[in-house]
């Protein structure tokens, strides 16, 4: 029936109090296999590529550039890009520029709540190396130490045209089956988690936000 992950490898959820342990799942995420039939997998990737559901979560200043995407001028709808208000349904997470430590916590949580396959586009220069916040005490410098990033669109700020280009690029990557960030995240889960916990001091969430 419901195929569940093996629960023998559970997470400690050390950030939670005793009674909260019962409220959050402590299962460890596992990687998913591609469909065993190649044609099916290709078709599935084609579908995913043509229906990019962006999580409507503006994490940084770049979020302002997401708005024009839907307007008459750029009309991302025509290339299958649409916004979804809940991470459960979204497949693309656009990190809108710099991400503070505080935001990172929310980014991690949202990312983990998205269902795979899921893709991350990092917008602007800041997620690459910190950009103008390179010496800020409260801004993370390299996003891909915390979540796997499939595509960087640099610039400060990148214009919507670039975003459209990035989306098209992402579609191409998905169709080619190159976007396996979700599986990477799972496979290197302990490393990512350690990095996240290093910067997020008050870790009051479960280790994996199902």
């Amino acid at each position, binding site marked *: 029936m419901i*195929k*569940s992950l093996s629960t023998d490898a559970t997470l400690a959820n050390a950030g939670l109090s005793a009674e909260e342990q019962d*409220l959050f799942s402590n299962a460890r995420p596992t990687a998913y296999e591609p469909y065993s039939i190649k044609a099916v997998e290709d078709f599935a990737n084609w579908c995913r590529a043509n229906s990019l559901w962006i999580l409507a*979560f503006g994490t940084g200043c770049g979020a302002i550039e997401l708005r024009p995407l839907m307007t008459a001028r750029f009309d991302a709808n025509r290339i299958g890009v649409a916004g979804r208000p809940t991470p459960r349904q979204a497949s693309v997470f656009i990190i809108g520029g710099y991400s503070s430590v505080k935001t990172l916590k929310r*980014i991690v*949580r949202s990312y983990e*709540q998205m269902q795979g396959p899921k893709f991350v586009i990092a917008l602007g220069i800041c997620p690459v190396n910190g950009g103008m916040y390179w010496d800020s005490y409260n801004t993370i410098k390299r996003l891909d130490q915390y979540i796997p990033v499939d595509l960087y669109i640099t610039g400060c700020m990148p214009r919507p045209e670039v975003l459209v280009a990035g989306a098209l690029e992402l579609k191409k990557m998905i169709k080619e089956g190159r976007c396996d960030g979700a599986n990477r995240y799972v496979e290197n889960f302990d490393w990512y988690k350690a990095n996240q916990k290093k910067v997020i001091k008050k870790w009051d969430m479960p280790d994996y*936000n199902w």
Partner: protein
Amino acid sequence: MVAAVFHPLGIFIVALGTAFLTPLLFRKREGFASLIFMLALAAMATIAAAGFLALANGAPTIEIETAGIAPPFAINLRFGLYESFFVFAVNLAALLAAWHYLPRLRKHAATLLLFIIMVMGIDGMVMTRDLFNLFIFIEITSIATYTLIGFEREAGMLSAGFKYIIATSIASAFFLLGTIFVYYQTGTLNIDDIIAHQSAIGGPIGFVALLLLLTSLLIELKPYPANGWGLDVYETAPSAIASMISVGVSAGVIFALYKVQPLFGDFLTSIAVVGGITFLASNVIGLRQNNVKRLLGYSSIGQMGLMVLAMALLQQHGQHTHLALIVGGLFLNHLLAKAGLFWLAGVVQRDTVRGWAGVAGKPLLLLVLGVCLAALIGLPPFPGFWAKWGLVMELAVDNLYGWIALVLVGSLLEAAYLFRWFGHALRADDSEPVNVGVAPLLPPAAAAALLAVAGYFTARSAGVVPGQLLLPVYAAGALFLLDGLPGRLKSLAMLAVVAGGGFWVAGDLQGLNRIFALILVAGGLLMAVATLYRGDARKGFYPLLAALLLSLATLLTAHTSLEFFTSWELMTLSSYLLVTLGRDGVKPALSYLLFSLGSAFLILAGFAVAFAATGSIELAALGNAGDSVPLVFSLLALGFVIKAGAFGFHIWLPGAYTEADDDTTAILSAVMSKASIFGLVIVAGQLGVRADIGLEPAYVLGWIGMLTATFGALMAVFQEDFKRLLAYSSMGQLGYIVAGIALMSHLGWVAALYMTVNHFLYKGVLFLAAAGVIYRTNTRLMYQMGGLIKNMPVTFVAVMMAIIAMSGVPPLTGFGGKWLLFNAMMDKGWYWLAAVGFFSSAVAFLYMFRILQTVFLGQRKLAHKDLREAPLILLVPQVVMLVIILVLSAYPKLLLDPLSAAVAPYVPGALLWDGLALQSHLGYWNAPMIMIIVGGVWAIPLIFLLLVSLTIKIQPVKQFNIVYAAERPHRPEDTHYAYRFFAHYERAIGVLVKPHATAFWSAVSEWSHTLAASLRILYTGNGQTYVLFILVYFVALYFANTGTV
């Protein structure tokens, strides 16, 4: 020889002899004197009893002549059936009162002799046939009473006693003056002789003479407003003495009034009005009274007013044959009940009704109190019930509808304050518990026991066979004896009794009654099985439940309106008591009782009007009522819909259903509420369907039903309390049924009965499920629950199925009811009702979903982590009923065919079947096919999803693993959206569900209290004012009657 020993004159001889010798005996030895005293009282009672028994068995009336000279030249006494009955009753009460008060009485020789002389005086008042001798006996009684009131010499007693003396002395003076004027005109003092020469009494002197006599006797009976002195005495005098004034002295006076009443032929209306005003006024004023003994005083005076009223009206209309049963029954009832209550008040020694909280938890005390109060209100099986029934019937025969209304309203008011008192006695608070031994309780307990016995015999003389009819009482009595056993054992015993009794009573019913028997008796039994889930003692619960269920059984077998009404009142009483057993059940139980009694009184009035029109109390004869049919139908239908919780009268329902025990509520809602449906069907079957009657009442009934459905649903939407929500839901669903019956068509009735069966099934499941949930969570507030599906999956499934069955969503049974009802309404042309019905069924969705969402879904509270599934014994009836729901859903023909056959004798017609599809004029409904299709369309996506699931890793997660705007939830309480779930709906249409009905009934209550306050202003406590009232009373009577002679 035996006759000589038991000669009634012996009463006087024993009394006088004992009294004269008491001082001598007392000097020798006190104990011996009180022994002789008690023996003398016992002897008096025995003589009276022997006489009564002989006379009741046909012995001739004993005429006692004194001085060896025939009347009218010498005084004579009469000891006929009525006299013997009164004397016996009074002497019995006196014996018990003396027993109750012996510890104080025995301290003085004078008290002993005064008491016995007082009793003798009352006996003399009853027996003498001489007007002046009557005066003597009145004075003997009065003087003895004066001293007995005040001999404790406390300030209050002295004041009250003095006022009493002044007032009764004036009354006696009037009597003496009247007597001498009567003598002046007739030349005789013998009452029979006076009546024979009645024509001689005339002119102003005769008029004044009669008026003086009448005023005097009425004043002695304490008519409103000239009765403040009487109340003061009731309040302050020792209980035993107050009881003797209330039941003994009043008995003597009322019998005296009865004796001389032939003289007052012209004043009978005045007398009735006096009685009526007194009855009504004292019961209104009683509402504000908190002092127990004064409360009893108001009740006493009211009862006397009722008896006076009954006597006058029945004589006025020549109903002499019924006088014995009615006035005798009322008298005996009042005598035993009121005396018992006074003694109880004397034993308990708490002044205010609040103080009686100390009685809570004392079973014997409460039993005696309850019996006496129930008797006083006129509930079966006590004598007052049969008497009141007879009274109302006879009043109706004489077209005295206004008087019927007065009697019933007064009785309702009396019930209000008496049961408010009972409520205080049931509810323990921080006041000190009452500690009394068994011995002091024996006199009141004896009174209670005698009430039951008397009830039995009154029932027989009322022409009822008390075998099956009073089975609930017997069963309750028998089970009450077992009340010491462990809870579950008692439950099993109760089940056995109900099963046996129910089968015996209702086993061989046919047609419609059989269908109701299946719901009420078999269904009730099924629900009663659930009572096994609680193992605690539950004192009094099982006997009452047995009484309730068996009274439902006897209700179904009733052939006459009297049998029906008896069972109905037994049902009311037992269910009221069951509600009081709930956690905070006492207060809502009172409003439940009052509305139930109100509805019962409407039903009684309806039956009475029918009896007047047809001359028969057969239920089958209701339809012959001719011109009265609309009135009868309206009264009965209104009575039944009030009991069903109709819109406007519903305010009792949520409280009673909510606060009763959880399994009780299930039975009340799922089972007992069908009794009113049964009544409505019977009545409508006899009356409503006849084509020659205008349908306006039925149309009104239809609207009442639909508005009830709508507002029941709307109010249910805004409840936080699980049971209260279900209670409003019950109200709403019964509204549909009422509307269905109102249709008076074959299809409408099939719809109504179908919904009745269905309501029984799903509401039973829901309330039992609620019982399980509440049992586990210890709260009724839904927002404190949540996520219980994980702990109670079976209960959840049961609730879900029940809700689908209730909502009318295909394929379960609810849709059938809606379909039938809608079709019947469209057939009938009741489009607006159909539209409202649509709306209310949509609104019903709101609260139905609310239950599932806030109780079973959403976030589970931390404290509920380890809850277990509801007890198995609660689940068993639910599962049984769910199976029935499923079977009926798939194959409704199983139910519809018997229903159609059962209603056909009342409303001709048949269901049209095309294969398995039911056809109507408008549409069609193929339930099995729907079932298959729905099963199919449900199964195919499920299989698809299961297949897809094979390709996906599905991770089961926990309750906090939700998207929460990138944050994490912190407490289940914050995350569970449940409190004021439909707040937005309230904002939109909340104006519709403002508690107008509650406000209205509160205002009614407020008004009656205000009225009471202004009526009792006259009781200033000033003796002179009271004297003035007596004079004014005389003057008023004089001028009110100047026109009549």
